[in-house]
Structures are given as structure tokens and as C-alpha cells.
């Protein structure tokens, strides 16, 4: 292939990927058309307008593709490195690579950027917000800009490092994921202790003795009741046919009922 990708090509792909990679998400092709859209100008330069090679590659790139929105350019970079060298002969390699990489990358990208980061930052921001402090939101925005910078750098990194990247990053990422999940679990523990503000208001009378249940619970361990609630919901979520939405509604109904009966209060 004669065309060699330049700085401005990477800029264009990054711009398109960052803003619009999932605008076309649909049930049939998922991110397929998004993939074609992000690299269309570069494909045209590489294969030339109106050639049958270009049409062949365009058709290939609209096929089903679905990975984490945060790391999609890692696949794109490797893909372009191959296409630049092999051209249309690399079609099958590229297709195999796309399908092979989208799964593992989805797992890594979604767990770090789609779940852990929102958990930790969301917990902090929500905690501050409930006290009326918007600082946590700003903090999150700043962290997001950091993520954008990272996403911007990924394309060239993977283009240059090509296939070796997939193997070298693995160790690094598993150590990082391990540490991050630890932090996540720790933070959930901390949040259970502060963010669920509900008390037992039930005070049974035995003869002329009134038992203050909440006081007794506090003597065992402060915040034990919220921990028990989380435990029960956790157990409930392990049941068959239970979704998070159903769980939310069950908690809603049970809370209202117990509050009406005077068992729990704010």
C-alpha cells in the first residue's frame, strides 16, 4: 500500500471515535457502522476512491463489532497497522483480529472505565453531593478529562506497537485491576457505613420494659442494620430471575411497608 498514515489521520480518527463511536449503536450490527465511520477517510486514502478494494473493505468493516467504548481504538490501531502494510490481502487477518480482540478488550475496558471508575468517583461525588457540596462533580469531570487524554493516546500506541501490545499490557492490567477492585470493595464497605441512613424504630414492650432495638444494635456494632440490609439484598440478587430493576422495586415496596408498620424510620 502506498499511503502512510500521518498525524492528522490519527487526530481525525480520535476525534470521530471520542465523540461519535457509538452514535449508531443498534441491535443488528452494534458498533459496526461506528467502526466504519471512524476510519472511513483513512480507508479512502489507503485504497483510493471508487475502487473495488475499498468497497470490499467497507463492507467488512460494517459487520458486527462491539467492544468497550474506552479502548476501541486499541483495535483500530492494530487493524490500521496491518491494513497499511497488507492492504486488501490482510482482510481475513483484520476480520479475525477484530472479532478476537473485541471480547477481551470489552472486559478490560468496561471493568476499569465503565464500572470501577464510576464506582469510586461516583461514591465520592454522591457522598459530597448529598451534603450539598458540588465539588465531587468537578472532581469527576477532571478525572474524565484524564480518561479522554488516555483514550486519545491509545490509537497511536497500538498502531506503533501493533500486536505485541496485546501481550505486554496483560500483566500490567491484571495487577491494576486487582488493586482497583480492592479499592472498590473497601469503598463499598465504607459507603455502607455512611450512606444508608435508616434506623430501627421498633421498640417492643415486655411487661413494663421497653427494648430499644436500635440502641442494642449499636452496642453490638454501629451501623449494623444498614450492613444487614445490604446483606439481604446481596443474597436476593443471587436468586434466579432476579434483575437489579426488580430488586430496586422490592426494596421500595418493603421499605414503605415496614415504615408504615413503624418498624423502620429515617
Amino acid at each position, binding site marked *: 500500500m502506498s499511503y502512510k498514515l500521518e498525524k492528522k489521520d490519527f487526530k481525525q480518527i480520535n476525534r470521530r471515535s*471520542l*465523540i*461519535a463511536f457509538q*452514535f449508531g*449503536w*443498534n441491535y443488528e450490527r*452494534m458498533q459496526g*457502522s461506528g467502526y466504519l465511520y471512524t476510519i*472511513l477517510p483513512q480507508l479512502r486514502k489507503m485504497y483510493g476512491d*471508487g475502487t473495488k478494494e475499498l*468497497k470490499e473493505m*467497507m*463492507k467488512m468493516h*460494517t459487520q458486527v463489532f462491539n467492544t468497550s467504548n474506552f479502548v476501541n481504538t486499541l483495535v483500530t490501531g492494530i487493524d490500521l497497522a496491518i491494513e497499511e502494510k497488507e492492504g486488501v490481502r490482510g482482510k481475513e487477518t483484520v476480520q479475525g483480529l477484530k472479532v478476537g480482540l473485541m471480547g477481551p478488550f470489552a472486559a478490560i475496558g468496561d471493568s476499569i472505565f*465503565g*464500572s470501577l471508575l*464510576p*464506582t469510586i468517583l*461516583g461514591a*465520592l461525588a*454522591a457522598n*459530597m*453531593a448529598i451534603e450539598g*457540596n458540588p465539588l465531587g*462533580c468537578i472532581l*469527576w469531570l477532571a478525572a474524565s478529562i484524564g*480518561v*479522554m487524554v488516555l483514550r486519545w493516546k491509545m490509537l497511536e500506541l497500538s498502531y506503533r506497537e501493533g500486536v505485541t501490545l496485546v501481550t*505486554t*499490557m496483560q500483566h*500490567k492490567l491484571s*495487577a491494576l485491576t*486487582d488493586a482497583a*477492585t*480492592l*479499592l472498590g*470493595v*473497601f*469503598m463499598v*464497605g*465504607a*459507603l*455502607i*457505613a*455512611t*450512606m*444508608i441512613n435508616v434506623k430501627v424504630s421498633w421498640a417492643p414492650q415486655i411487661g413494663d420494659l421497653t427494648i430499644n432495638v436500635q440502641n442494642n444494635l*449499636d452496642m453490638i456494632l454501629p*451501623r449494623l442494620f*444498614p450492613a444487614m440490609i*445490604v446483606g439481604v439484598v*446481596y443474597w436476593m*440478587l443471587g436468586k434466579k430471575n432476579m434483575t*437489579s*430493576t426488580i*430488586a430496586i422495586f422490592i426494596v421500595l415496596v418493603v*421499605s*414503605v411497608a*415496614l*415504615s408504615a408498620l413503624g418498624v423502620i424510620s429515617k
Partner: protein
Amino acid sequence: MTIALWQILLLTLYAGYQILDDLGIWSSLAQPVWAGLISGLIMGDVGAGLLIGGSMQLTVLGVGTFGGASKIDANSGTVLATAFSVGLGMEPEQALAAIAVPVASLMIQMDILGRFCNTFFAHRIDAKVEEMDYRGIERNYLMGSMSWFLSRALPVFLALTFGGEVVDKIVTVLNGDLKWLGDGLSVAGAVLPAVGFAILLRYLPVKKHFAYLILGFVVTALLTTVFGNVQLIGGNMAGLVEGFTGNFISLPMLAIALIGFAIALLQYKRSGADLTTTGSSVVREEVLGNNVVTKQEEGEILEDEL
């Protein structure tokens, strides 16, 4: 007080924008806390907005969207709950349980509809590929953003325009005949974060890190109690003793997070060392911006000095 037309329009625009932000640039403006802050600003009560947004954020803490599955739309729920709470004078925690959660789960259907509509554009793109019409491909692709935008903007607009009266009636009933239900919804609002945490624990490797769950919980539970009681004493002292100006703050959550971060850092170093310790030098890989730099740290290992 009602919701003015300009407020409806701004909230509608935000509701449409946030999903595009969430899908693309991910600036965090599409998170429920931000939704609360922004709708709070538009409605003129930032405190209520932050409370609803923050609580909603905790409720969906563990709900991620993986592989294109639809999740409950906490943002649209937050926007509507904040608007109605401030506009019609509903208690924020009631609005959270009575409006934000039901709206958020109803909006799942709109998410599915949005994704479905885009299939239409995908087929148009196929046709344009056949014709080699590059502009057409790009145009049809970007049109997909409209189905996303409308899937959130349209319901929010309709609800804000026509829902006011209904919500107004609900508020009257909840503070009158059905006071038990109103109070119950407030309590439910306080319990809902528990679901978020439980979902999250289902997703995280709890069994592996169970010790840290206990640690995080107990440290925070004890400190919260201590800080809370000190604050209480301080408040009472200030009421009794003239000129008493002790400044007692509540437990800073960032401090707890930093403890967690320190432990995580230790774990990271440990698991990194496990993989690459070779003789007397520790090889450490660092991702510095766009480059994988392999660093050789020569010299003594700390353990040797002891």
C-alpha cells in the same frame, strides 16, 4: 411555583445531550450527580438537585451497561424528580422514590427503542456503501445520534409539559390522606443506596477481597460514630457556653478513600513484584502517556537491609 417554559426547554436539551455524552466523550456530565447539579441549577435549588442526584448515583452505583444491555436511566429520572421536587414543592427524598426510580426504569423502554431505530440507519448505510456514496454514509451514521437524542429528550419534554398537574395531585395526597405512604417513600429513598451497593458487590470479587470489605466498613462505622458524637457535643456546648467556637467537622470521606487507596497501592506493588521480581532488580513497567516504558530499578531491595 411551576416550571417555566425556558426551564422545560433547558432540561429537555440536557436530557437529550446527556445520552450522547454518555455514549461518546464520557465527560461525566451524564452521571446522575451531574444531572442533579445541572437540573438543580436550572430549577434554582442546587441543594435539592444534589441530594436527588447523589442518592440516585448511589442507587445505580453497580449498574453498568455491558455489551449493549440497557440499564435503568437514572439521569432522566433525576432530571424529572429534581424538576418536580423544586417546581412543585415535593420533599426531595419523596421525589426520589416516587418519581426518579419509576421514571428511570420506565425509560429502559426508550433506550431499547433508540437502539432499535438505529438499525434503520445501519441498513441505509449498507445501501450507501453499495453506491460508494461516502458523504451519504457519514450523514446516515450521524443521523443515528438523533434517535438517541430524541429517546431521552422527548419523554422528558412531554412529562415536564403535561405531568405537572398529575404530580401536583400526588404531592397533595402524599401530604394528606396518604401520609404513611409519603413517609414510607422518604424512608425508601434512604434505603435505596443499599441496592446499589449490593449490585456492586455482586460484580466485584467480594470473596477474594472480603477482608477489605470488613475493614472499610468497620473503620468508617466507628469513625462516623465518633465524629458524629463529637459534633453533637460541640453543638450542645455552643448552645450552653457563650463564646464557645469549636469547629467540629463531620467525617471527611476523602480521608477514608485515601486509606483505601493506600491499601490498593500496596496491593498493586505486591502483585506487580510477584510477576517480575528477578534477582536483585525489580523490573517495573509504567504506562507513561502513550508509551510503555520498562524501568529497571537497580540497587538494594528493602528486605535485604533488615
